[in-house]
């Protein structure tokens, strides 16, 4: 089990995380943060494998990733 968490205040809607996600479960949502950016949301947490590629590509350190302990 893994989980991706977008910290809304940091997200600038650039879309770079969306492109690198191998599971294609990230998309721009329909709600804005305080700066007016439409923040990224995860459409299917069940499918997240915790690979951290989205977080590593995010220029604004807006993503945290969690994974079950092995």
């Amino acid at each position: 089990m893994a989980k991706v968490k977008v910290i809304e205040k940091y997200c600038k809607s650039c879309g770079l995380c969306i492109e690198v996600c191998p599971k294609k479960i990230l998309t721009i949502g329909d709600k804005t943060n305080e700066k007016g950016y439409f923040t990224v949301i995860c459409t299917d947490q069940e499918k997240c494998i915790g690979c951290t590629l989205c977080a590593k590509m995010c220029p604004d350190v807006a993503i945290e990733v969690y994974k079950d302990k092995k």
Partner: protein
Amino acid sequence: MEKVFARSKGLTDVPFSFCPGCTHGIIMRLIAEVLEELDIIEDTIGISPVGCAGFSQDFFSCDFIGAAHGRAQAVGIGAKRALPDKIVFTYQGDGDIAAIGTQHAIHAAARGEKITSIMVNNAIFGMTGGQMAPTSLEGMKTVTSPYGKDVSTTGYPIDMPTLVANLPGAVYVASVSVDSPKNIAQAKKAIKKAFKVQQAGLGFSLVSLLSTCPTNWNMSPSDSLKWLRENMMPVYKMGELKVTEEVESL
């Protein structure tokens, strides 16, 4: 569940001031992670430049000194000579280090000053609105080269890491890119090595990172990464350009 990716302690909680999709932010994150992993946050003094990274002191949790445009290395060398036990790094755009500050880059390397310089090359003057830089590519359209950069009057792109690598005082020089997770991992390794070189007191280290400027390139963040890959990576020599024997054995 266990956190497998979280914000580094090397960063404050202040959001970056960069435009959406600008890879300056990736580079700052990598440096912060390296400072944390080497446990040197408290011992480090960063030198911020003039340019889009001019607010660096707000984002890093280590100490910082602000320098005038192009003078980050001069200030950093002063700090390091006065406080040799500190780790000193400069964070500079290509305009800062390869235009107005070129002489410092060359002489810091010639003298083997024991500091680490991070060069962020987006081939343009970002902060001032996208003017042509000495690092702009042949034919590149900018606000001051609207018909494309004419190298016969404005010169070929300056490959600063290649120049610096030729100087004996430079012991570690790398040219990397942050266009993909794989290259980002490589970039982090290079940054870590550059800081280790300084910890060991071996000499001058420089890491140049190819970076995007979606705003002044007039491209989406994703197209900017593609443009960097297709246009900048073939022009600039990539990889570890200089690794002395002493550095190899670190």
